[in-house]
């Protein structure tokens, strides 16, 4: 039995751990080593320079600025996406007029909404960026958003969107939310559909309205699902640099208000005099910040029985 157990454990772990070690861990270890060098990424030569790159990063204002934007994204994008996902899912499942004796009902056409909302999920980021660049086009005739605002008489709300430093980052985050909400609507409404209606009927007696129902019943029951979504959205938000790279003006502009660390890293590694060593150091620094952040979030959200 014992022997069998260890053989089984090793047998089951061998392939995943090997794959992971070779393709994920080893490149990261290499990256850490590279971060201690002045490697350009272009030649086999490199020299160890200790922690010089890290020292430079600490004094690099742009790095901190970019990191702050990352943290903003990490906080705002998942919250807004999940909140909208929950809101729409709740509307779909509980927002409808009741029929017969049922105390809660979904809205009519819930299936239709769930199909439409899912659409952006099948688009790749390049396509989303191209689409939204047309939407955000500041031209009052050609830009979808501005011409829409013009048609309904809200000319004063017309903006240069991605070109306006005060809203550019918000514009990009809005696209990230847009692209991801649909999946969570489907995910959460699947969860809500499996909550027995009796539970709703029970709180009804307590004189609860739908809003308190949501917070007292729906949310606690969907806790695990929301947590899963939270982590996944966190990963997406961190990788959100593709959105910034493709959409922002002047590569993280205007005036650096949309720059994020992965984009800075990308530019440093592949463009600005090919400083791969420096870029690797940025990656390591960001990794450390993210890990701290992740541990904190998990600590804060870990209560009750959810075991991470």
């Amino acid at each position: 039995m014992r022997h069998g157990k260890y053989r089984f454990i090793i047998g089951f772990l061998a392939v995943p751990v090997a794959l992971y070690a070779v393709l994920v861990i080893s490149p990261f270890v290499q990256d850490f080593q590279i971060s201690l060098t002045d490697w350009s990424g272009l030649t086999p030569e490199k020299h160890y320079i200790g922690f010089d790159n890290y020292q430079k990063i600490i004094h690099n204002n742009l790095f901190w600025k970019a990191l702050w934007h990352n943290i903003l994204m990490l906080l705002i994008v998942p919250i807004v996406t999940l909140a909208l996902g929950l809101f729409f899912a709740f509307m779909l499942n509980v927002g409808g007029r009741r029929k017969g004796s049922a105390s809660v009902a979904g809205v009519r056409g819930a299936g239709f909404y769930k199909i439409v909302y899912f659409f952006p999920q099948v688009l790749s980021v390049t396509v989303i960026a191209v689409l939204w660049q047309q939407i955000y086009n500041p031209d009052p005739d050609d830009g979808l958003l501005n011409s829409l605002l013009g048609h309904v008489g809200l000319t004063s709300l017309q903006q240069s969107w991605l070109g306006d430093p005060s809203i550019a980052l918000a514009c990009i985050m809005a696209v990230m939310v847009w692209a991801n909400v649909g999946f969570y609507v489907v995910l959460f409404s699947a969860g809500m559909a499996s909550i027995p209606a009796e539970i709703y009927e029970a709180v009804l007696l307590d004189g609860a309205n739908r809003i308190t129902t949501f917070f007292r019943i729906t949310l606690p029951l969907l806790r695990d699902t929301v947590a899963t979504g939270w982590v996944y959205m966190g990963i997406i938000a961190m990788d959100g640099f593709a959105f910034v790279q493709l959409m922002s003006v002047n590569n993280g502009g205007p005036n650096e208000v949309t720059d994020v660390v992965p984009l800075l890293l990308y530019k440093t590694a592949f463009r600005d005099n090919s400083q791969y060593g420096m870029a690797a150091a940025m990656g390591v620094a960001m990794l450390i910040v993210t890990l701290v952040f992740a541990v904190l979030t998990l600590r804060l959200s870990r209560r009750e029985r959810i075991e991470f």
Partner: protein
Amino acid sequence: MTAETVDSTPGPAPQGSPPKPAPDAAAKHRWRGEGIVLNVFSHGFLWVWTLMVGVPLLWALWSSFKTSGDILAHPWSLPTHPHFDSWSRAWTKAHMGRYFINTVIVVGFSTAGTMLFGSMAAYVLARFEFFGNRFIYFLFVGGMAFPVVMVLVPLFFVTKNLGILNTLPGLILVYIAYSLPFTVFFMTSFFRTLPTSVAEAALVDGASHTRTFFQIMVPMAKPGIISIGIFNILGQWNQYLLPLVLNQGNTDKWVLTQGLADLAVQQGYQGDWSGLFAGLSIAMLPVLAVYVIFQRQVQAGLTAGAVK
């Protein structure tokens, strides 16, 4: 629809779920009044989001039938006489068909592989105590915080040394490796929530660990496997950076995101907008069709996994 299944669904009772007397008429009436307001309100919001999602996509679709000059000069106009040449251009010149097949192959194998290896590792980590268990677990979980952009160059060398650079199997292995952290993280917590008694009984009956896993645990974990699998399918389908760097060889082996990125960049220089929109429609429509056909199954899978 929820109400009908109430009686037959035992459903997991929330902690401290109250007794369930029939709601009295007054409370029901209050809900009804509120329901009408909420109904209008929820339909309003749901429609706003429907338009936000639907209009850009319909716009892209109908634009693919216009000429490039028309798209830019009169973005809102309907196609005067449909041009299908952009579709044939996207299909033949931009090889969208071939990329589509490649993507299906890559995502099919990599999602299957991810779920197989991820579940195997997660099961062992969740159910067996052995030296190094926590270490391996945190190694996997930590991977969620790794920004992929940081490892591109080292990963390029690792795959090159293994001889899997610019090959579809190589891409599959890389996708699996980078999907493992999220998968292991959630499948581990999922396996922990499953009852142990069935598996123990099977072991006592003389079944091997391997057999117990595949014949008993996997069917029990099916809801979790399906919902995490859907996360992975979507994530891998839209993967953008990894193929860009690791699969840049022969265009015969490109995946959709590469083809679309190529079209998107190309459009920036040559202004072939109708080709771009046709390509995007080709990429988008089959996936949407698949989703529409299988949405019940997808939702059923998610439902089962959503509330434990």
